[in-house]
């Protein structure tokens, strides 16, 4: 069966510091990968998605970047964090071929607080 891991679970960082969040998927090959952010009291906003190694698409302009160095590894980064980067960050995966209902499966999330 497939599993998705995210770490760290919780992170407190000062403004201006760098960020690296990691996501890995097990039990599947060539998944589509996604990064979402949930701000307090809000829905989930898609930040980045990737359909293959080295292929990154950004949905919203922001202070963050993403990379996919390996098939099942997805990294969210920032060079200098802003207060507005605080939130709950979620990684998700889906199958790469459309055959079902476009379901995405989410990791446990990382709570980021920027002070």
């Amino acid at each position, binding site marked *: 069966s497939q599993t998705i891991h995210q770490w760290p679970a919780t992170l407190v960082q000062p403004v201006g510091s760098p960020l690296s969040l990691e996501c890995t998927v097990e039990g599947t090959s060539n998944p589509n990968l996604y990064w979402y952010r949930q701000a307090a009291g809000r*829905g*989930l906003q*898609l930040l980045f998605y990737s*359909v293959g190694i080295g292929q990154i698409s950004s949905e919203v302009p922001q202070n963050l970047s993403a990379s996919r160095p390996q098939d099942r590894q997805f990294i969210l980064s920032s060079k200098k964090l802003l207060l507005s980067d605080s939130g709950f960050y979620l990684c998700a995966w889906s199958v790469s071929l459309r055959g079902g209902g476009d379901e995405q499966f989410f990791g446990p999330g990382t709570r980021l607080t920027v002070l």
Partner: protein
Amino acid sequence: DQQVKQNSPSLSVQEGRISILNCDYTNSMFDYFLWYKKYPAEGPTFLISISSIKDKNEDGRFTVFLNKSAKHLSLHIVPSQPGDSAVYFCAASVWSSNTGKLIFGQGTTLQVKP
């Protein structure tokens, strides 16, 4: 421009009764609709989905209804249980650039009282 809206931020239901969660959308290009359940500090869990060519899909206690003419979908939970208490998100999908992009509503917090 919010393409997927859940206008009720919260809903309280008695155990054993029906819970009805609603969702509206604006983009007629969406072709799949999904419901997720989320507990605090956890990732969302997929519940049920429906294709735009159907008007009903059922899975155990969960049924999703789609009214394309009204651009409205709803999730029915019967009977409701205290363990169903969580935030429920509806999402709509459109296939683009080799991926199904999900647009989420703001969520509805369901409380099921024993």
